[in-house]
């Protein structure tokens, strides 16, 4: 830059200096000041942790847990896809765990730092989507089910037929708002796998939904429970935990897993690649698996915990609630979502676009 002599140098110097200072501030890496500060950044779903868990953790370890919230797995994935913005612990659902492992987005866990892993029930100590649990630890689990109003739906909901192939409750039914769930359960009703990769079967499911669309009020993006509670619909397809929350406020609402079975899900604790505080992250995961901490979380959020030691501290009301813990027979008919690969995902998404445009 050439210096114009008609400018007083002091003003220029001030400008330059402040400019340099600003640049310096913005370019300074956020965590360059200490090796591992007493902090852990937790990226979680809303209302998905105990009331005092984060404060208790800080009391026990001196590490401050900061929580940020995401609304769905897609948001989580999209946010981390271009590089980790600073999260240490995240809570993806099983098929997204699989997706993120394939995309090399998850850190390998050091099990020696998570001794409380042994608190988990045996069937949660391994998983098809993450053999050996190298990248993920089970946090909560549940199903996709049908919530309904008992006074309006006298016979209950036995089959997905009521939602996918019937005009009995026309205009009083809501389905979830994503391709995998809406099409997956239609496939289930048609007697196929929820994870079908067969274009012909997916097409059949698409046609079924389009033919029945006139009876569906809305594809609800995770707010089906509110529609049910406000009387907008009488039957809704939802995550069981969401229905449980409105069941507490309204005795007329209940839930059922249809006879064909539904989606079985598991939300997992993972450490994303590039986590700034991996040591603290392990300590935090270990703390969440602690029997007492785990029971406090389960008691507050009313989801099914995979933590056997925590369950021992829970009351009967929670443990024997079939809405939280479905029978083994029901679970046997349910299916976990599998990551289907880009090509098949595209089939589902295209079908979903056509369904909504029809």
């Amino acid at each position, binding site marked *: 830059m050439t210096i*114009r002599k008609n*400018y007083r140098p002091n003003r220029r110097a001030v*400008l330059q200096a402040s400019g340099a200072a600003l640049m310096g501030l913005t370019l300074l890496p956020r965590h360059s000041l200490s090796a591992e500060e007493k902090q852990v950044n937790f990226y979680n779903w809303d209302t998905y942790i105990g009331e005092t868990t984060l404060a208790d953790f800080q009391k026990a370890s001196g590490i401050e847990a900061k929580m940020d919230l995401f609304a*769905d797995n*897609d*948001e989580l*994935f*999209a946010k981390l*896809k271009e590089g980790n913005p600073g999260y240490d612990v995240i809570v993806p659902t099983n098929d997204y765990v699989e*997706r993120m492992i*394939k*995309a090399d*987005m998850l850190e390998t866990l050091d099990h020696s730092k998570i001794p409380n892993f042994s608190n988990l029930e045996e069937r949660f100590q391994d998983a098809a989507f993450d053999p050996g649990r190298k990248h993920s630890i089970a946090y909560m689990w549940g199903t996709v089910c049908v919530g309904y109003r008992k006074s309006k739906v006298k016979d209950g909901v036995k089959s997905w037929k009521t939602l996918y192939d019937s005009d009995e409750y026309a*205009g009083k039914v809501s389905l979830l*708002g*994503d*391709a995998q769930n809406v099409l997956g359960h239609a496939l289930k009703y048609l007697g196929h796998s929820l994870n079908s990769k067969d274009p012909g079967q997916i097409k059949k499911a698409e046609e079924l939904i389009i033919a029945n*669309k006139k009876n*569906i*009020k*809305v*594809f609800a*993006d995770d707010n089906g429970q509110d529609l049910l509670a*406000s*009387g*907008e619909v009488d039957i809704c397809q939802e995550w069981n935990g969401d229905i449980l929350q409105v069941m507490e406020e309204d005795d007329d609402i209940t839930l059922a897993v249809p006879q064909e079975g539904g989606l079985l899900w598991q939300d997992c604790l993972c450490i994303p690649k590039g986590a700034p505080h991996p040591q603290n992250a392990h300590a935090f995961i270990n703390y969440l698996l602690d029997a007492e901490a785990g029971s406090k979380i389960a008691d507050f959020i009313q989801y099914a915990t995979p933590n056997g030691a925590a369950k021992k501290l829970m009351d009967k009301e929670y443990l024997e609630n079939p809405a939280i813990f479905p029978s083994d027979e029901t679970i046997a008919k349910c299916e976990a979502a599998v990551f289907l690969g*880009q090509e098949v*995902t*595209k089939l589902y*998404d*295209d079908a*979903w*676009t*056509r369904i*909504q*445009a*029809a």
Partner: protein
Amino acid sequence: MESWRDNRFVFWVFALPGTLWLLVFFIAPLAIIWALSFGEQVDLVNVEVTGTLQQYARALTDPVYIQIIWKSIWISALATFLCLVIAYPIAFLISFASTRWKTVLLVAVILPFWINLLIRTYALIAVFRTRGFANFGLEWLYTTAQLDHVFGPFEPLPLLYNNFAVIAGLIYVFMPFMVLPLYASVERLDKSFLEASLDLGASQVRTFFSVTVPLTMPGIVSGIILVFIPCLGSFLTPDLLGGTNAQMIGNVIERQFKAANNWPFGAALSFLLMYATFGALALRAAFAGRKQGMEV
């Protein structure tokens, strides 16, 4: 007055922040998305920009996307038209109000901006739903007028989860963008023209269409542009208020970036929308230019 050329340093000091802002936060992201639209998803996280036109081809050959774009256009056009019809009298009202009332009314128009769009949309749900305020109000009127003895009990109207709700939501959200430019041009309108027109024997209607509308045309055009374009790209309103076929092109684009994890296709769809918008604006400019040419 000094020309900026004589004081280039001062000029750059003032121009630099804006230029940088535009470059870093507008041109650069847009350029990235534009580049992505010529790419393909090679695996879960990586997109390779190969210069392929397949994304555009997919969008233009599959009739479903054209159909959705067409639907988005007519929904936006209808919402814009209704906005115009409703906003015009409001602009006049504000313009003809006393100075004190003018401030109050303008604040009332701008006030909703202070509340987040998402919250305003949720508020609309509370108004429109079956057991919402609109239906409560109607039911009260219905029973007060004793109509229930004649036609039977009140049936709540299905106001939510249909195209009506989407259009009402869009009008509600974008109304200020129509009122403000209209108000600005009505304010500039020389009221003596209206008097002259009436004095010379033109009817109120004639005066409105032959004098008022042409003179406020700049405001009308800016209002239409300011409402129509954001409407076209909206996804939150159809998502929350719409029924099973509410999907607009904004929803499809959003899904490509999230659930479908196909950024190149989402980018191509966004840019198709942008090309169409630019095309429409260029057409408008061309028409405006021709008209001016004829007048001269």
